[in-house]
C-alpha cells in the first residue's frame, strides 16, 4: 500500500473554502444540507464501485441498477400498484426488494466475471444496456408516482439529530470500512487487485472475492437508488442515467487505480465529495447547464494535475 498522503483531501478543503468565499449562498446551513443530500447517494454508489475497481474490474451497470431498482421499488411501494395495503410494510418490502434486485444483478455480473471468465468491462456494459432497457421496457418509459409518505418524507426525517440519508451513508461507509480493513475479504480484495494469479496460489478464494465485490456494488447502487427515489418522489426508469461517469470519476479522482490493488476508502469519500461539491457550487453560481459541463471538465483536469504535482510521481501504474 502507498502511504503518500493523497492530495485530493486537501484539494477538497481548498475548493470548499474557495467556493465558500466566491459563491454566494454556498456557505449556508441550507446549502450544506443540500450538498450532503446530493453527496450521500453518489458516495454510497461510489464506494461500491471502488471495491470493484480495487480488484481491477469495473462496474458500468450501476446506473442501470439504480434505474431498475427504482422501478422495482416504485411498483412495490406506489399506491397505484402496490400489492400491500399498509404503507410501512410496503416501504420495508420495497427497500428489501430493491436491495435484493441490486444484489442479484451484482451476482450475475460477478459470476460472469469470476466463473465465466468474461471481461468485466463487457459484462457490465451489456448489463448497462440490458437492465437500463429493461427498466424502460417494464414501465414503457412512464414514471411511477404516489409513493408512500413515509418514503418521501424519509430525507427530512431525523434520528438523533441527523437526517436518515446521512445515517444511511454513514452506515454503508462504516460497513465497507470494516469489510476493507478488518475482514479477510478486504485483504483478499487488495490481493486480487495486485495479482490474481499469485493470490490464488497463496490461498485466496479469487472467484468468491470477485463475486462479492460485484454483489456489494449492486447492493450499494440499490441503496443509492432508495435515496434518489425518495428524494425525487418517483420511481423512474431513467434514474441516474447521467451519473455513470460521476461515480467512476469520483473513485478515480480519489486516486484509486483502474488497474487494481491501490486505493483507500477515505480517498473515494473525498473524490465523491469533490464531485458533489463541484456540481453544487457551479449550480449555485448560476451557470448554464453547458457552461457547468465545460467548467466541470476544466476543474477535474486541474484537480488531477494538482494531484500529480502533489505526489510528484507517476500515478499511471500500467
Amino acid at each position: 500500500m502507498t502511504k503518500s498522503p493523497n492530495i485530493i483531501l486537501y484539494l477538497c478543503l481548498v475548493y470548499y473554502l474557495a467556493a465558500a468565499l466566491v459563491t454566494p449562498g454556498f456557505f449556508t446551513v441550507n446549502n450544506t444540507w443540500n450538498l450532503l443530500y446530493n453527496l450521500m447517494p453518489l458516495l454510497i454508489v461510489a464506494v461500491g464501485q471502488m471495491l470493484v475497481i480495487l480488484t481491477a474490474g469495473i462496474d458500468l451497470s450501476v446506473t442501470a441498477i439504480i434505474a431498475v431498482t427504482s422501478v422495482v421499488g416504485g411498483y412495490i411501494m406506489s399506491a397505484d400498484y402496490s400489492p400491500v395495503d399498509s404503507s410501512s410494510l410496503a416501504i420495508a418490502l420495497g427497500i428489501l426488494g430493491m436491495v435484493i434486485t441490486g444484489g442479484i444483478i451484482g451476482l450475475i455480473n460477478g459470476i460472469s466475471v469470476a466463473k465465466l471468465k468474461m471481461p468485466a468491462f463487457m459484462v457490465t456494459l451489456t448489463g448497462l444496456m440490458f437492465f437500463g432497457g429493461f427498466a424502460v421496457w417494464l414501465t414503457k418509459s412512464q414514471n411511477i408516482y404516489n409513493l408512500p409518505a413515509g418514503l418521501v418524507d424519509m430525507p427530512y426525517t431525523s434520528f438523533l439529530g441527523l437526517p436518515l440519508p446521512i445515517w444511511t451513508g454513514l452506515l454503508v461507509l462504516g460497513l465497507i470500512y470494516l469489510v476493507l480493513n478488518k475482514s479477510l475479504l478486504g485483504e483478499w480484495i487488495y490481493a486480487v487487485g495486485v495479482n490474481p494469479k499469485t493470490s490464488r496460489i497463496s490461498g485466496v478464494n479469487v472467484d468468491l472475492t470477485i463475486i462479492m465485490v460485484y454483489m456489494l456494488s449492486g447492493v450499494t447502487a440499490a441503496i443509492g437508488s432508495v435515496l434518489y427515489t425518495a428524494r425525487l418522489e418517483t420511481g423512474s426508469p431513467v434514474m441516474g442515467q447521467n451519473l455513470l461517469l460521476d461515480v467512476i470519476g469520483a473513485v478515480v479522482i480519489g486516486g484509486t487505480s483502474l488497474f487494481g490493488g491501490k486505493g483507500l476508502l477515505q480517498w473515494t469519500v473525498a473524490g465523491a465529495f469533490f464531485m458533489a461539491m463541484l456540481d453544487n457550487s457551479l449550480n449555485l453560481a448560476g451557470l448554464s447547464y453547458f457552461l457547468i459541463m465545460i467548467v466541470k471538465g476544466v476543474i477535474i483536469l486541474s484537480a488531477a494535475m494538482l494531484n500529480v504535482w502533489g505526489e510528484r510521481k507517476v500515478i499511471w501504474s500500467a
Partner: protein
Amino acid sequence: MSNPVIFKRLRGQSIVILLALVILVFSLLSPGYFTTQNFLNILLQASGLTIVATGMTFVLLTAGIDLSVGSIMFVAGVISGKLVVGGLSVWLAVPVTLVLGIILGLMNGWFVVRFKIVPFIVTLATFFAGRGLGLLISETRAVNLPDEFLQIGSARILGIPLPVIIMIMVVAVAQLVLDRTVFGRQVYAVGNSQERSVKAGINLNRVLLRVYIICGCCAALGGLVAIAQLGAVSPTFGFQSEFMAIAAAVLGGTSLFGGKGRVFPGTLVGALLIQSIQSGLVIVNADPYLYPLITGTIIFLIVLVDSQRHYRRKQMKGIST
C-alpha cells in the same frame, strides 16, 4: 489441417464465425435480411462507429482509454454544421473539423504525457468540456445540416457509398500502420510494458501523444461520416458512443489492458457485429423497447462464447507447458 495457416487464422478469429452466425439467424428470421442492399446498409450505418472505434483501438493498444470520443463526435458535428450553415464550403468545413479533432486529441495526449494524469481522468474532463462546448455552440438545439452534407452521405463511387469507402480506407491505413511501421510496433510495445519499452529506447511520450491524436481525428471523422447520413446533429448525438466504440474494439479481440488487438479484421468485425444486430432488429420488426435488451443479450452471449474459447485454450496451454 491441409491448410494450417488459414486454420490458425480462423481459430484466432472466432468473432468472424459469430458474426456469420448472427447474420444466419437474422436471415432465417426475415427474408429481407440476406440481401445485397441490406448488407450495404449495414456497412453504411456501421461506417461512423467503425472509424471511431479504429482510433479507439490505437489508444486501447497502449492500455489507455479515451472517454471523450462521443463528445468529440458531437463537437465536430455541431461546428461543421454551423460552419456550412454560415456559408463555408463543405470542402473547407471538413478539414477544419478534422483539425479540431486533432487538436482535441492533442490536448488529451498532452495532459497524459506532460502531467502523467491517468487517461481516464483526462478524457473524462474532455468528455464533459467537449459536450458542454458543443451544447454552448448549438445553444442546446438540434443543428440541421444543409443538403451538401447529405450529398456526401449518399454519394456513391462505383456503386459503393462514400462513407463505406472512407471506412475501408481508414481501416486499411490503420492496420498497415500497425503492421508495417516502426510506430505501429512501438504502440504494441508500449501497451505490453511501458517500463520495458522506455528501456528499449522508445520515445514513450511521442507514441502516446500520437495515439490520442489519431483517436481524436478518427472521432471527428467518424462524427462527420455519421451526421452526413443523419442530416442533423441532435443534442444527444454521440452520447455513450465511447462505450460502443470500446465495445466494438473489445468484441474484435482488443484487450483493455493493452498490447493485444487488431483493427482488421478485429475492430471492423466488432463494429459490423453491433450494427448487424441493430439492423436485424429493425428488419424483423422487434418492439423498439426490446432493442437494448436483445442487443445486450446477444453481445453478452458473444463475449461469453469468445471468452470460453480463450479460457479453454489458455488452460490447454497451461497443461502442455
